[in-house]
């Protein structure tokens, strides 16, 4: 096992946030699902049924994505800067660990913590099974989509962590990136369709006009709700964009790590 992963997991789980964050996450997710249930039951005048199940599932999936987008920078953006701040970075770089091992240890530890949150959230998402309208496939594809989007954001957080010396700066810029990709891309799309005059349906929009949305993790999740045969082209395009973003951030981080001895 990569010693970086063992060290990172060991240290992360010793921190107070190692148990506070999962607890808070479950409380918030549970509260939102309960609220969604009451609102849906009130609106549909039924306490069970497919409408209620779908409403609970979609609310839980979006809430999970939103919470994890808020938490991801905390795990990733401080990963390398903390080594610089506590002056252990030089020891890592002068050891026989390769830049890839250092990166992978940090990436895997961050992603594993996100996975822990996703796994403990599965029972909450699965409550919708009891109401109908949602099957294992929907839960599976929503989780896969969330993991891929969060993996890309983890890689981006690690990139900023390799650029800056202070965790506070890396975390701020990672949050700015999250906002840019979730909110700004959506606003750009809204502006684009408001000036578009050649049709109002999704099929009328050119590829370039949809591009900002392909960068949007919430849109990516929304596309995962499509039936399996309709995942192509939009979900697949989003998948390509997020994999590309993750790989680009990874490549740049490794490049930075190879030349970061001067700031160690």
């Amino acid at each position: 096992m990569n010693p970086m992963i063992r060290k990172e997991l060991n240290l992360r789980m010793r921190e107070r946030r190692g148990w506070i964050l999962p607890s808070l996450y479950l409380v918030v997710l549970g509260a939102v699902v309960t609220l969604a249930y009451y609102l849906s039951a009130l609106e549909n005048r039924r306490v069970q049924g497919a409408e209620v199940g779908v409403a609970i599932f979609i609310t839980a999936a979006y809430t999970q994505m939103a919470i994890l987008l808020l938490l991801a920078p905390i795990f990733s953006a401080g990963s390398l800067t903390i080594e610089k701040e506590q002056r252990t970075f030089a020891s890592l770089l002068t050891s026989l660990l390769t830049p890839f091992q250092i990166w992978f240890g940090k990436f895997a530890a961050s992603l594993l913590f996100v996975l822990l949150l996703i796994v403990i959230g599965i029972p909450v998402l699965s409550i919708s099974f009891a109401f109908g309208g949602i099957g294992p496939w929907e839960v599976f594809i929503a989780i896969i989509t969330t993991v891929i989007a969060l993996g890309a954001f983890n890689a981006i957080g690690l990139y900023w962590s390799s650029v800056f010396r202070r965790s506070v700066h890396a975390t701020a810029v990672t949050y700015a990136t999250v906002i840019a990709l979730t909110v700004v891309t959506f606003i750009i799309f809204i502006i684009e369709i408001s000036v578009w005059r050649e049709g109002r349906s999704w099929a009328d929009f050119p590829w370039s006009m949809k591009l900002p949305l392909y960068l949007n993790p919430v849109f990516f999740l929304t596309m995962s709700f499509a039936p399996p045969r309709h995942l192509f082209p939009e979900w697949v395009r989003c998948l390509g964009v997020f994999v590309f973003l993750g790989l680009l951030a990874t490549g740049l981080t490794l490049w930075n790590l190879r030349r970061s001895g001067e700031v160690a």
Partner: protein
Amino acid sequence: MIQISELRKNFNGNRALDAFSLEVAEGELFGLVGPNGAGKTTLIKTLATLIKPSSGSVRIAGMDVQENRDAVKQITGYLPDQPGVYQDMRLREFLQFFADAFHVDRERQSPVIESALRRAGLADRSDAFVEELSFGLKQRLVLAKTLLHNPKVLLLDEPATGLDPIARLDLRRELQQLNAEGVTILISSHILSDLEDICTRVALISNGKNAADADGNQIIQLRRAAAPTQIYEVEVLGSIENALQATTSVFTATVLKAENSRLLVQLAGSKAEAAALLQSLIAAGVQVASFAPRSTTLEERYQKAFGGTKP
């Protein structure tokens, strides 16, 4: 063991190292002295493979440090000027992590870690958290971690900074012990007396260049090595004329300075020559008030070389 030739390093147009050259022999305990910003840390980081030189050549055990980074890391231990630790780890876990990071065989890890803890005097605290240690003990732990893979060359950047006198003495003893075991050590320090006591030779660095002391020496041979000559300070009562006359009768004696009642005489290194000079002075009826060897301390040389500023 360490060969640095015409090393240059620029940072954003500023020259941190400027044609610096140095050779350190195998088994030497070599010192590097210079004022703040002289380029000591840049030089040691370059040797530790952290910094890529702008030009020039840096070799350890015949290997270029940039072209053979892994091989150089395998035989090199680097202790940064501000050594960092993982506060939330236990001492044993900390050493275990670096044993893994330096690819120490799994079967050998346990004895290697036990031995490192014993050597650092931390064996009875192996399950304590690093944050519970004092600064001096953390420094010992980091040195122990640096030695886990049995490096042949140790690069120490101001290792005594922040240590109390006892911890400093411990460190000095530890370095002497390692050197006696055959480890080549390059150590930079502002604590000149520490270098003077343990180093065989010291290089001077200023503005990234090789600097020289007032006598033009870029490398200062310290007392531990056999000095070719020894200077004696003689104070006499009354006129020094008789003393000057008596001095000329000793074959290896050269009068360097004679003023008022004091003479500075350079003699060949042996104590027999000093005894002969003293005997000659007394035989000539010179009243000797004091007769003592005088060595130019590293601190004096440093002050002469760098305009009297003491770090």
